[in-house]
């Protein structure tokens, strides 16, 4: 009995990490744009979907190698992100928050519609990255794809930290996020940084979509829920705090998987959202941030 419980728990832990890693990446995407612009990009979930669907076409239809297909997919979504910023965010002078929200919603509808037209309404199967059988750890099974997901998350986090702490461009982006005026006075082109934030955010979203597709079978309509849960992770971790987002994303994923296993799998999808609402209502600064800072900001 005892052993059975722990095996179950381990199984849910693996499942939770697998889900949570995706939330964490989506949340990092949100934070990237939020930090540079103060905008919450409602099309973030669509980046994930596009990444996944593109990967499906590249590998399953065109039979490209995994690595090449991966790069093409990420590049494609990155370009979509750049186009979105250049065509819909950059031209808006004196934007109101409401208008920006609706604009990003419009983009998400467009991307969703485009995805439906190209890839249809069905869900798309994709083979796992490696064809190995599941590994058994203390009676629990872990899919090789889950290891891929964990590894990819680790790579993204490392890349993220390295970019923002050790490259000039990364530092410039951080500077823009901290103090826009001071950054401009140091000669940093803030508009280019905004574009870059959309590009990077789209790229991270695409990676998340690519690695999850073999497990969930991507379809065009998944963006909204993925985006919402990713936003939940971003809020729980403290909006703008990317390391917080990683921790919160994993946490949410594990709680979700656990509650799916122990309470009810039907309501599993709602758990992360309920937690998100709870945190928003009680501690809008996130679990790891100070709520005072958030209230001082004007949204």
């Amino acid at each position, binding site marked *: 009995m005892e052993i059975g419980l722990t095996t179950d728990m381990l199984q849910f832990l693996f499942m939770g990490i697998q889900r949570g890693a995706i939330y964490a990446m989506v949340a990092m995407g949100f934070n990237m744009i939020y930090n540079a612009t103060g905008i919450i990009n409602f099309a973030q979930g669509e980046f994930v979907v596009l990444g996944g669907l593109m990967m499906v076409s590249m590998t399953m239809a065109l039979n490209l190698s995994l690595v090449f297909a991966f790069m093409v997919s990420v590049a494609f979504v990155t370009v979509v992100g750049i186009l979105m910023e250049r065509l819909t965010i950059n031209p808006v002078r004196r934007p109101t*928050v*409401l208008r920006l*929200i609706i*604009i990003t919603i*419009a983009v*998400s*509808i467009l991307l969703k519609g485009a995805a439906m037209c190209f890839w249809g309404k069905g869900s798309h199967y994709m083979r796992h990255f490696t064809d190995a059988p599941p590994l058994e750890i203390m009676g629990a099974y872990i899919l090789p794809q889950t290891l891929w997901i964990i590894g990819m998350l680790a790579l993204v986090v490392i890349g993220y930290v390295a970019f923002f702490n050790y490259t000039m461009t990364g530092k410039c982006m951080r500077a823009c996020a901290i103090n826009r005026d001071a950054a401009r006075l140091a000669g940093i082109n803030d508009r280019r940084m905004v574009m870059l934030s959309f590009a990077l955010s789209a790229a991270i979203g695409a990676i998340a979509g690519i690695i999850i597709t073999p497990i969930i079978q991507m379809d065009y309509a998944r963006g909204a*829920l993925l985006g*919402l849960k990713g936003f939940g992770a971003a809020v729980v971790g403290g909006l703008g705090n990317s390391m917080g987002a990683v921790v919160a994303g994993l946490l949410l994923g594990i709680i979700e998987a656990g509650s799916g296993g122990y309470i009810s799998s039907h309501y599993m999808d709602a758990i992360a959202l309920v937690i998100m609402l709870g945190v928003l209502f009680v501690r809008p600064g996130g679990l790891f941030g100070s709520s005072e800072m958030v209230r001082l900001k004007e949204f």
Partner: protein
Amino acid sequence: MAARDIIGFCILIALVLVMPHAVGNDYYIGVLIFAAFNCLACIGLSLLMGYAGQISLGHGAFIAIGAYASGLLTTELGWSPWTAMAAGAFAAMGIAFIVGIPALRLKGHYLAMATLGFASIIHIVAVAATDITGGPAGVLNIPRLSLFGYRLDSDTRYYYFAWTAVVIGLYLAFNLIHSRVGRGLRAIHGSEDAAGAAGINTAAYKVQVFVVSAAYASVSGSLYAYYVNYIDPGPFDVMHSVLLVTMVAVGGLHHVWGAVVGAVLLSLLPEVLSFTAGYLQVIGIQYRPDYDILVYGGILLVIMLFLPEGLFAGMIAGGKSVWNLVKRVIRGKQVVRE
């Protein structure tokens, strides 16, 4: 009510009366009935978004609450449809009150996401709580409404009934706008700080208007349930909430008339598109209803980028410039005569 609004009412009522004779086809009358449901929900949303300046991406949930309350109370408990509709409205208002108090302390993006999350939760519950809602199978055999002994069983009758509800809804909304309460809301939109300094309890007012707009949505949901006699979670997903915001934004946020214009136009859009599909085929484009969503997104984006005040404001401005042109032409002639 300003003179302009009274003219607007007259035009609306005239159009409502003429339309069935003009289209004369049950299918199109059905489309117009759906337009009326959207109108009703959008009027409420416009009070919240356009006047109080608070966004909600969760109004689909209140429509669902109204629809399910009507569907379940009539079929399971045998309540009269009218009582069920009132109960649904009260339930929606109660939930709006409970959710609104913490949610409306949030601003902008946070509020948008919180309401979107709320809508998503309600949708998930509607699918998952199979014991109560019937889950994906939905609720069947919802009775039709009767009014003064008349059963509203023909589309034409229901059409007049639904649009009467819209007119009543508009009437209430206009009274509210041109009152102390409405001024308070508009003041909150203008500047929350200044509104507070004028003695307006901004937090309470925001919740109140949220509750009122939830009631509009709930009634719209009930009317929908009584019309189609069958509900399932499908139409009440997050996308529907987003679509409502789209309608209000496309029509114009700053005026209730904008909500009416936006709701009607976007409700008719799929029909217009399928109508034009024939012509598109001639020039070699195979049109599919799937493209509708692209057109929605495109319209919304174009309006937000180039006409942020919305179509209604654009129409007014266009009308004014035409009028000015006419006046100039007339005056020009006078100058010539002199």
